[in-house]
Structures are given as structure tokens and as C-alpha cells.
């Protein structure tokens, strides 16, 4: 009798887990569709124009360094456009639903607040993935064009593209966290600051080491470990010189991103669960 109850309980739990995943997938799909409808992917047109222009004209200006410039320009544009999308679309993910009052319709159905946030997050991550993949293909094609054939830099840019994508996933989660409790403008500002400070992590550590007072030292050491270390995801310049990160390094950065995103989404869910929409 007890085992039958356990099996029933387990089946119900599995079904519930399955339903949860299905709901998250449905919200993610909708968030992706909404981003496409909002013409977020139009930035790809600008990117293609930029790369085409660079491929044609940069050879004249760079003294024969067009391959390096194309990789630097392409991957930097990928990061910059991605950061803008992560910040400006990310901070509006929740806010728009509240503003348009569609959030009431969502929560009138059996959808948890955590599921809603994770679904929205994954939807934007999917948008960014499409964006980054198309841009990566664009950079590869530009390299093929300037090299008049296969270019050894093509395989080395993809690990850098993966690291850029991880950085964008981290930023999206950060934007979502801020937007769960503040206005879009403030959230965008705070996320942008995290992006900047995240690239100054090494300076925070050296600042902490150079300070005499133990209070300030603890503060900066704390900030160093608390804020996301985004400089680990900067592999654009080595990629332009044909250097790829080791598999161990990519795995460690992926693990760091996964842990950090889990922490941020948990914190965002915690804040969002307590929010009163009345």
C-alpha cells in the first residue's frame, strides 16, 4: 500500500516536473517570438553592413591587417550589440508585462513566478543565441572573403564566440534581477555598471591588496568575489591572433557562468515572489 502511494507520488511529481518544464518552454518561446516581433534581430542588418564595409575597405587602411581587424571588429560588435540587447530588452522583459497588465493573465494560470522569470530569461537567451550564431557565421564569411578561401582564424573565433555568449547570458540574468525590483531606466544603468565593473575585476583585487585598512580591503575583496568576473570572457584579442582557449578554461568559465546565473535567477525569483502587483 505504501509502495503504491510512493509510486503515485513519484508519478505525480514527474508529471509536475514535466509540466513545469513545458510551461517554462512555452514562456521562453513566447519571449523569443516577442523579441523577433519587436525587430530585435534587425541589428543583424547593421552588423552585416559593418562587416561588409570592413571587408571591402579595411585592407586599404590597415596595412595588410584586414584579417585581424575583421575578427576584432566582428567579435567586438557581437559583444556590443549583444550587451545592448541583453540590457535594453532584458530590463523590459518583466516590466512590459506589468505595464501592459498581461502579467495578471499569466499568473491567473498555474504558472509560478520563478517559472515565469526563467522562461523569460531563456527566451532572451535564445534570441541572443540566434544573434551570436548569425554574427559568428558573418565573421567567418568575411574571413573567407578577405583570404580568398579557407582562413585558419575561422576555427579559433568560435570558442571566443562561445565565451561572448556566456558573458551575455550573465548580463541578461543581471538585467532580469535588477528589473525584478526597479524601474527599467535604473535597471539598465545598474546592469551597464555591472558590465563595466565586471571588466575591472582584476583592478578591484589589486586595489584590495594595495589598501592598508582592513575594512576597505575586505570591502573590495568582497566586491571582487561578489561581482561577476567578466574579464574571463574576453577572448577577442587572442582569437584575432589565432589563439583559442583551452578546453579546461572554457569548461571552468561555463561552470562559473552556470553557478552565477543560478544564483542571480534564484535571487530574482526571491525578490519577484514577494512583489505585490495590486
Amino acid at each position: 500500500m505504501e509502495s503504491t502511494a510512493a509510486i503515485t507520488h513519484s508519478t505525480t511529481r514527474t508529471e509536475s516536473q514535466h509540466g513545469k518544464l513545458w510551461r517554462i518552454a512555452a514562456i521562453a518561446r513566447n519571449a523569443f517570438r516577442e523579441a523577433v516581433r519587436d525587430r530585435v534581430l534587425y541589428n543583424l542588418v547593421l552588423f552585416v553592413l559593418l562587416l561588409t564595409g570592413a571587408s571591402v575597405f579595411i585592407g586599404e587602411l590597415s596595412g595588410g591587417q584586414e584579417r585581424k581587424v575583421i575578427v576584432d571588429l566582428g567579435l567586438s560588435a557581437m559583444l556590443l550589440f549583444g550587451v545592448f540587447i541583453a540590457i535594453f530588452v532584458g530590463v523590459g522583459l518583466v516590466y512590459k508585462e506589468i505595464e501592459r497588465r498581461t502579467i495578471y493573465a499569466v499568473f491567473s494560470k498555474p504558472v509560478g513566478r520563478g517559472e515565469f522569470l526563467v522562461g523569460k530569461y531563456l527566451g532572451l537567451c535564445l534570441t541572443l543565441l540566434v544573434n551570436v550564431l548569425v554574427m559568428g557565421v558573418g565573421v567567418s564569411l568575411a574571413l573567407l572573403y578577405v583570404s580568398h578561401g579557407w582562413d585558419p582564424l575561422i576555427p579559433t573565433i568560435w570558442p571566443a564566440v562561445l565565451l561572448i555568449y556566456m558573458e551575455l547570458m550573465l548580463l541578461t540574468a543581471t538585467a532580469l534581477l535588477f528589473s525584478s525590483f526597479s524601474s527599467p531606466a535604473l535597471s539598465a544603468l545598474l546592469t551597464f555598471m555591472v558590465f563595466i565593473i565586471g571588466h575591472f575585476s582584476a583592478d578591484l583585487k589589486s586595489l584590495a591588496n594595495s589598501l592598508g585598512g582592513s575594512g576597505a580591503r575586505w570591502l573590495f575583496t568582497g566586491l571582487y568575489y561578489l561581482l561577476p568576473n567578466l574579464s574571463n570572457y574576453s577572448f577577442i584579442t587572442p582569437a584575432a591572433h589565432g589563439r583559442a582557449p583551452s578546453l579546461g578554461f572554457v569548461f571552468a568559465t561555463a561552470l562559473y557562468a552556470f553557478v552565477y546565473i543560478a544564483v542571480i535567477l534564484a535571487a530574482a525569483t526571491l525578490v519577484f515572489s514577494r512583489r505585490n502587483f495590486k
Partner: protein
Amino acid sequence: MNDRNRTIALGLVVVIGIACAALLVRRLDRLRPPDDPNAIDESLYVNGKTARRISLSFNGLAADWYWMRSLQYVGRKIINDNDVPLDNLGLLNLKLLAPLLDTATTLDPEFLDPYEYAAIVLPAINVNDAIRITKKGIDANPNAWRLYHHLGYIYWQQHDYQAASEIYGRGAQIEGAPPWMEAMKAKMAADGGSRATAREIYTRMYEQSADEKVRDMARRRLLQLDSLDQRESLRKFFAAYQARAGRCPSSWKEIEPIFRALRVAVDASGAPLDPSGAPYVLGPCEVELDPKSEIPAK
């Protein structure tokens, strides 16, 4: 006004407005006082270290920008004097070139082209900057044997053959360095000031450089070395002619048959041609380069 007319009217406003704006820009261009020619030499606002710090993940792109700016800076200065070889730009007041190349290499220490450019162009402007930037490149890229070749070239230009030999020797130890690096070490130590060493160094530079301007400079220097050999032979010939005839030849026509017998290439006036194909100019028992020749006089 119906919809169609409104669309046409608005379209016309856009087209006419753009045309008027373009005309106004032309007028403003004429009214604006001319640009300060010294503005191009305005000091850089940020040094390399600060630029690297504030460039976030975009340091590679910023390095490319500084590199292109260096090329534009030199390009604008030599635009009126295209015949100046790349290694002889000392008179052009390129005071901003060293900071630009320094910043580019601080932003991206693995970017080898700015080091090469510094090694070729800077010695004529400030040799200490050239040595400092090339050494910085070696520190950041200890396995780049080409940088040792460039540093050796700077020392060779300064007639410091011992230092050049030492640097070539260090470069020769690097895995993948070509065997001629070891040969250059010996050549510098034994015969640094000879024309043969100069020919060797420029030949290697011509073969190894990916930069078209550096290759062109090396090609012109090789032509110059050939021309020096030719002029030396011609001077010996003039001395022999003077000893026999008691005077210098008054025109190339006078000695053209001898050149033809010796299978020396001459033009219609009988003047022998330098290695670039330009005729030599005859002086009193002296031979000079034609000012139009692409071979550098110095």
C-alpha cells in the same frame, strides 16, 4: 489635400531639404577658417595603460584603431613627398608616431606589425623610442624571432655591430628561427659595416615582411646598394679614362661605344641606366643619380 498629394508633398520636402542642407554644408565649408596644420600633431589624451584599462573587452579593436591612425598620420605627412623612403622620415616631424605605436602595442602586446613599423620608421626620428618599443615587443613575444631581426637592424643602423650580433644570436636560438639568423650573428660581428651585410639584411627584410611599404623600402635599398656598386665601377672607369685621355668625358655619347662593348644598358643619349632604369647624370669625372630615379640618394 488627399493622401497621395500629402505623400508627394512630404517626399518633396525630404528631397529638397536634403539638397538645401548639402548646399549649406558646401557654403559653410567655404566660410570656415582653414584647419590648423599643427592639429594633426596634438598630443594623445590617454596613454597606453589608461587606454587599455578603459577599453574593457575592446582592447584589440582599440589597438587596430591606433595602428590605422599611425599609418594615416605618416601617410598624411608624406602625401606631398611620396619619394621619401620609409626609413628616412626624420625631416617630417613625426613626433606623434612613437606614442601612437606605443599605445597600439600596449593595447595589444601580441600585435607584431606596429613593432615592425617602429623598428623601420622610428630610428630616423628617435632611435631610443625605436629600441624601447622593439624591446617591449620582445618582452611580450619572446618567441617572435622577427622582432630580434628588427632590433638587430636598428643596432646595425647605429653601427653598433656587437649589439646587433648579440641580438641576432639570441633570435637564432628561438625555435623556428631561420638558419640565416645565426649567419647574421657571425656577419655582424666580423663584417658589420660592409655592403654585403647591408645587402643581406635588406634581402631578408624584403623576403620576410608582410607589409608592402616595408618590402618596397627594402627593395629600394637593395637597388641603392647595386647602384653604389655601379657608381664605384663608373668612377674607376672615369679615372682610367682621364689617365689615358688627360680629361674627363664631356658627354655620355663620347663613351657610349665602350658601354655598349661592355654590355652596359644605356638610354638613347648613351647614358648608362641605374638599377631602377633611370639614366645616370654625368658630372666632371663623376656620376650621380637622376633626381627622378626611385633610388634614394641617401
